[in-house]
């Protein structure tokens, strides 16, 4: 089945992943242009594209730093994993919305891809 691919609002992502938002006043109308699934922040820094939603299992403050530096639109943590307070604090400060989905990283990525969120271009 072919689905139209394109940007997806944070609202729809949140809904489709059954995710909760753990930062204040999430800008749900913002759009993620691409999906990025990684637990290696170096990889996100190296190959991430601006305005990606970062799906990860890593909840340390470095995830927020990485999202900030790599211009990610939001971060969604998998496995229902609540990040430590310092991660949330940092995210509030740098304006990166954080979501938590009960799905695994695999299922969350698979679902968004199936719904039409494109990935990052293949590496050359």
């Amino acid at each position, binding site marked *: 089945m072919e689905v139209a691919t394109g940007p997806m609002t944070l609202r729809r992502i949140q809904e489709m992943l059954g995710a909760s938002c753990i930062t204040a006043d999430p800008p749900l109308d913002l759009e993620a242009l691409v999906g990025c699934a990684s637990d290696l*922040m*170096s990889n996100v*820094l*190296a190959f991430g594209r601006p305005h990606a939603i970062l799906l990860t299992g890593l909840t*340390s*403050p470095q995830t927020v*730093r990485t999202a900030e530096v790599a*211009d990610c639109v939001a971060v969604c943590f998998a496995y229902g994993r609540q990040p430590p307070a310092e991660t949330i604090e940092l995210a509030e400060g740098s304006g990166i919305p954080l979501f938590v989905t009960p799905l695994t990283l695999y299922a969350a990525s698979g679902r968004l891809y199936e719904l039409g969120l494109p990935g990052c271009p293949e590496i050359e």
Partner: protein
Amino acid sequence: MNRKETVNELQLLVYELDVESAMTKEVVTVSPDLAMDKLPKILKSNRITGVPVTEDGRLVGIISLEDYVRWAADDGKPSCVGDVMTRKVHTIYSDEPLVSAVSRLERFACGRLPVLDRTTDTLAGIVTKGDVIESMLGNLEIDYREEGLRTYRTSRFFEDIVSDSTELSFAYEIRGESISEGGEVASSLKKTLRRLGMHPDVVRRAAITVYEAEMNVIIYAKAGRVRVSIDQHHISMVVEDEGPGIPDLEQAMAPGFSTAPESVRELGFGAGMGLPNIKQCAESFEIESVVGEGTTLRVSFHMEEACA
């Protein structure tokens, strides 16, 4: 945003914004021929307390509720606006900075200033204290979200300095083994470069580079520092550490090679991508290392060919 930053930002905004961006453009005006007894209805229906008087688009005076009250108390004999209005009006040009409007409103203790277009000398709008506040708050909001107006535009900055060569430099200290602080330098540098008005692509690559370099220092060294210098065309960075040094640089540059402990890998770093990442981001890349002494990394970025 803390209080001090907010105040600085407000100060900046009053200089950076012009009157035009704050003024109300849809201005109610009256003709000098209007009968005085018609004035209250116009003021009331527009919820204003004063109105500019124009003739063929040119400002000839201003009439306020106060003038009306004085006229009515003074027996209110049939007159037109032109006879009662204040002819000497304080005005401001639309291209003047907002700070001029603030000081004029204050100095002449008036509630509103008619705004004139400098080229045609006709009435372009009106600005009140409320407009100024609203405009600044509105812009602060944008600023807060995008840091948009907080850019000094580097090119302008460098043009303003008269010298044979100009260089802006600043430095950051990195504490070794402070894993939880990893990324702080990258974050600070990113904000700084953005405020300097640099191209987002350059900002991003410089921030990524410094993030990786910072993590390397944190993972392997006792301490280090990042020195950044910016001239009109380049950003150069030197990252030095007092660490163990790298015995085999070629091996260290190979993607996937890493000597990081599992604890670091679990933090999403140490997967052997750091140096290759840096090399990929920077336009020039040099690394020197002496085992037992430390490592020095030099990278640079061009500002113009941002999307190369």
